[in-house]
């Protein structure tokens, strides 16, 4: 393997509901940042779109930072298939020789990435939260991939010096997309691909909706989050959240106790959120929880225990009883709204 032949950063663009999913837009943004940080490499950001999608969908990758979009198109490619996507990606790896491939750590990404990495016998780092080029050598394209391990107790920085491409999946919600710019210039490389010779043994029979409409706390501006300290009183949070226009989040402590549904869980094994305001109530601030919310713009913590770890990431910490404070807050806001001026 001649490592020097491999170049550029490729981002897998996952489609969902006729859009490129946010998690991929975030990776395009991160790839732009990496490329700009190391201009000496002269790397491009390449978006990879696969499926029977419209050209407009593929172009979105360009609007979000790709210098080039490789669009592997086939009318028959209606939904994701591990085998077909792996084979198509292998063609890109053989022909285009990407140095770096970034794939979102979504359910789909975590199905596809290991398959590709194993087929081309390269290393794969999972669920990264931070990417940098080798800080010790300014010319180097070696990627330093940082990720949590052991339930967020420890962080490791992983490198792959011997094989190419350098592959990693990245946690959704961690990286930041660049601003959309529909006037950006980029190259569109659309390839009609043949899939008739790829045997896919897995057949999709049907898609079932999840019973409960999953709440999407990742889109909220304000998250009012409760932990074990709130106990079986999440209705207090819900009332307050309704009044202030927030979504309700939760720690795993609260979810495990059955106080609230798992869809609300924030953290390492829950969702990564970065709202404008995160209000943590009765949450101790375990590393696994912090991992999912510490990038919020502004953090307010309410906890009885002045020594709680949550205070270490908070902008404002209030030592007190959340169950006393929240109803008062609801009342404050109600009064404010009713005031005539």
């Amino acid at each position, binding site marked *: 393997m001649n490592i020097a032949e491999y170049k550029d950063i490729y981002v897998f663009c996952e489609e969902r509901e006729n859009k490129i999913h946010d998690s991929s837009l975030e990776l395009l943004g991160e790839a732009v940042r990496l490329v700009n940080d190391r201009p000496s490499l002269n790397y491009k950001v390449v978006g990879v779109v696969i499926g029977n999608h419209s050209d407009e969908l593929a172009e979105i990758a360009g609007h979000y930072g790709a210098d080039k979009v490789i669009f592997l198109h086939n009318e028959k490619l209606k939904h994701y298939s591990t085998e077909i996507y792996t084979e198509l990606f292998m063609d890109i790896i053989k022909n285009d020789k990407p140095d770096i491939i970034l794939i979102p750590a979504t359910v789909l990404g975590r199905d596809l990435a290991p398959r590709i990495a*194993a087929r081309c016998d390269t290393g794969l780092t999972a669920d990264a939260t931070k990417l940098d080029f080798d800080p010790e050598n300014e010319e180097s394209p070696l990627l330093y991939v940082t990720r949590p391990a*052991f*339930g967020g107790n420890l962080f490791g920085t*992983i*490198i792959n010096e011997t094989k190419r491409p350098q592959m990693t999946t990245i946690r959704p919600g961690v990286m930041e997309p660049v601003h959309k710019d529909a006037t950006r210039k980029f190259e569109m490389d659309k390839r009609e691909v043949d899939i008739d010779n790829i045997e896919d043994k897995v057949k999709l029979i049907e898609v079932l909706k999840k019973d409960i409409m999953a709440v999407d706390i990742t889109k909220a501006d304000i998250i009012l989050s409760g932990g074990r300290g709130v106990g079986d009183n999440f209705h207090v949070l819900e009332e307050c959240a309704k009044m202030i226009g927030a979504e309700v989040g939760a720690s795993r402590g609260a979810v495990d106790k059955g106080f609230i549904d798992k869809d609300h869980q924030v953290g390492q094994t829950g969702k990564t959120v970065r709202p404008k305001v995160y209000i943590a109530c009765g949450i101790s601030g375990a590393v696994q929880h912090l991992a999912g919310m510490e990038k919020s713009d502004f953090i307010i913590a309410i906890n009885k225990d002045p020594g709680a770890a949550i205070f270490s990431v908070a*902008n404002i910490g209030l030592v007190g009883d959340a169950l006393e404070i929240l109803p008062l807050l609801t009342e404050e806001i109600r009064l*404010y709204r009713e005031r005539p001026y």
Partner: protein
Amino acid sequence: MNILVLLKQVPDTTEMKIDKEKGTLIREGVPTITNPDDLAGMEVALQLKDKYGANVTAITMGPPQAENMLRELYAMGADEAVLISDRKFSGADTWATSNTLAAYIKTVDYDLIIAGRQAIDGDTAQVGPQTAEKLGLPQISYVDEVMEFSKDKIVVKKALENNYEVLECSLPCVITTLSTIAKPRYMHVRGISHAFEKDIPVKGFDDLEIDPAIIGLKGSPTKVKKTFTKEVHSNSDILNLDGKASARKVAEILIDMNFIGK
């Protein structure tokens, strides 16, 4: 029908302690458990065995003490257990682990392979799919229910972020299971005594036909450059106010940020 279950013995990460100075884990005294997703996969295998009849083999690659886990699996109802263990295998990343597991699996008969979705030590979710690839088998990951099973195909429900997919696959194949798929049964008393009489075959490097360049720490393409723990820095204003003043403080912040319309 032969079902292979891949399981890993992992440190109980809820009990984990960190050496903040050195940025490393303190492994001494941390209890080990069978990885939850894998144990649920074991339960699925046993349920299939109860219903359709099958021979269930538990397979792990790990240090000699992983034998304890295999004995517990015997006690749960596994028919066979195999420990793949050799110093040459240690320090493997997911690619090297999959090469090793696949090298052993190639020597046995199977119809279905069940792995856990992910192991809680690394949370990578890679070994199942990578082992499938090394064996040239199709895979279905994130399985939350086995809906149908027969001698030539399996129908499962896969959990995605916002919905489920019902997928069908011909056998043999690999599925990876979520811990919610089934509640693992307890070890039964007869099983426990039986478990201690069982032989646990250990397969080392010499027992497998495998290129030494693709195993263990040396064969792993990914290397850990450094490990560290999060430095927690305090940047907050910590206020001791009464309830009313606290509520007002939060209200002021939200109003200042223009979240509260009139």
